[in-house]
């Protein structure tokens, strides 16, 4: 589902964030990406939805190369990948419903389908009764649920989360984790960058550790392995 071949990324200021990454993630896998701050985790994640373009190498998601794609086709590649951000990135002036519906409006779905699917995912994340609220009127955990709902509403084969629990208290973080697990059982490939040691060590999944822009460890049912 996700393949990276010898991916390098050097920023214009000379910082070498990724130094030859090779990975292969199967369809339906749930993968943690761990590593100290500044290790290249974020760049790794950003390359997967083409917010950053690698300096060298190739990334293939669901059979389509993210590197050889034409500029104007990038939006279509991004639709293959749902993204959940640490800071939620919700549109503050749109209601919960509108924020989620937006991802479907973009692909020109019919209003009927939009209504049905949005209510479905809001139900999945447990926010059906808060559809008319504005993001500001929700707690952090609830906002993150909206962000997750938006990322999966168009049924992308891949879901990428960049420290989705980073801004949340432990209890709320577990609630979010439950949602991800639920999504995982439906066959979505999930890549989650995280600093949450407790979650990684409790909910055992494949762990890819990045350090100094290289993969330092890749274990099935691995541990967090770093001290915070």
């Amino acid at each position, binding site marked *: 589902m996700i393949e990276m071949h010898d991916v390098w990324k050097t920023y214009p200021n000379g910082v070498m964030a990724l130094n030859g990454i090779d990975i292969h993630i199967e369809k339906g896998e749930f993968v943690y990406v761990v590593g100290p701050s500044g290790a290249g985790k974020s760049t790794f994640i950003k390359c997967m939805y083409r917010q950053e373009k690698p300096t060298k190498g190739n990334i293939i998601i669901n059979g389509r190369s993210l590197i050889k794609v034409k500029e*104007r086709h990038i*939006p279509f590649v*991004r639709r293959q990948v749902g*993204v959940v951000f640490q800071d939620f*990135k*919700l549109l503050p002036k749109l209601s919960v419903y509108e924020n989620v519906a937006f*991802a479907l409006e973009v692909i*020109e779905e*019919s209003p009927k389908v939009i209504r049905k699917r949005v209510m479905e995912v809001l139900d999945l994340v447990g926010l059906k009764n808060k559809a008319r609220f504005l993001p500001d009127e929700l707690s952090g955990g609830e906002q993150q649920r909206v962000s997750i709902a*938006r990322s999966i509403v168009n049924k992308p084969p891949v879901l990428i989360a960049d420290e989705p629990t980073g801004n949340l208290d432990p209890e709320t973080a577990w609630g979010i984790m439950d949602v991800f697990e639920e999504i995982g059982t439906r066959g979505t490939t999930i890549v989650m960058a995280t600093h949450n040691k407790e979650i990684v060590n409790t909910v055992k999944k494949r762990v890819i550790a990045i350090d100094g822009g290289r993969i330092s460890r890749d274990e099935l049912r691995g541990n967090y392995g770093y001290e915070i």
Partner: protein
Amino acid sequence: MKFRTLGRHIKEGFKSLGRNGWMSFASISAVTVTLLLVGVFLVLLLNINAIASQIEDDVEIRVYLEKTSEEPQHQELQQQLEGIEEVSSVKYVPKEEGLQELIDSLGDEGKVFQSLEDENPLPDAFAVKTERPQDTPLVADEIETLDYVSEVRYGQGTVERLFKITDTARNVGLVLIVGLLFTAMFLIANTIKITIVSRGTEIEIMKLVGATNGFIRWPFFVEGILLGVLGSLIPIGILIFAYQFIYEAVSMNLNTILFQLLPVYPLMFQLAGLLVIIGAFIGVWGSMTSVRKFLKV
């Protein structure tokens, strides 16, 4: 793009206006103020132009005929005059009519000349008008060389000065308008830019969920038109009201019969159309150039 999506974009454009209430208000106000200035100067310029044309149109060439010339020669000359390219009309003024005009133009003092009706000293004449009033001196020179012509008069000296004044008035007006339009464009576009810059995150999110650039641009396009058009409504209202008032005041006052302002309609329709178009154009321009910056995510 599906037709349904276009509807969505238009709806979003309207909604966005409301969601960004104060920002929209700021943009619309900028449009209102600048278009009001542009409108006032346009009305001024158009009227200066019209009045200048009225004055210029009064300029005509009097071609006095040799007293010895006869009817067939008059006809020959008339044909020659009409043959000159720049000439728009040639009117025969027999000496009786010429005298009457002279008497009328002098008012009470003209009565002195009434005794001359039996022994009219004036020659017959042609009144010649040119297509472009500015050609008058040139055409007059040409006519002077023709046969049977005794004298050519068009207010030599005065007419040249008059044209200089009217031309200057027009040019100054034009420069003012162009300068004002440029200022308006940048003022409005900048205000709109500030309002859109505050929405950079919004555009970034749209890009990250896979919106194409076109999809993002459309609502901003609609919003730009709306800002411009809404901003032009108040200036149009004020201008129509004020111009009607001034027009009536001026035409009531018989002393100013010297010149006439342009009638309220169709001038105001044209002006309204022009301001709406300028507003919409500037709105779209400002909105599109600002969005472009954020599309490179």
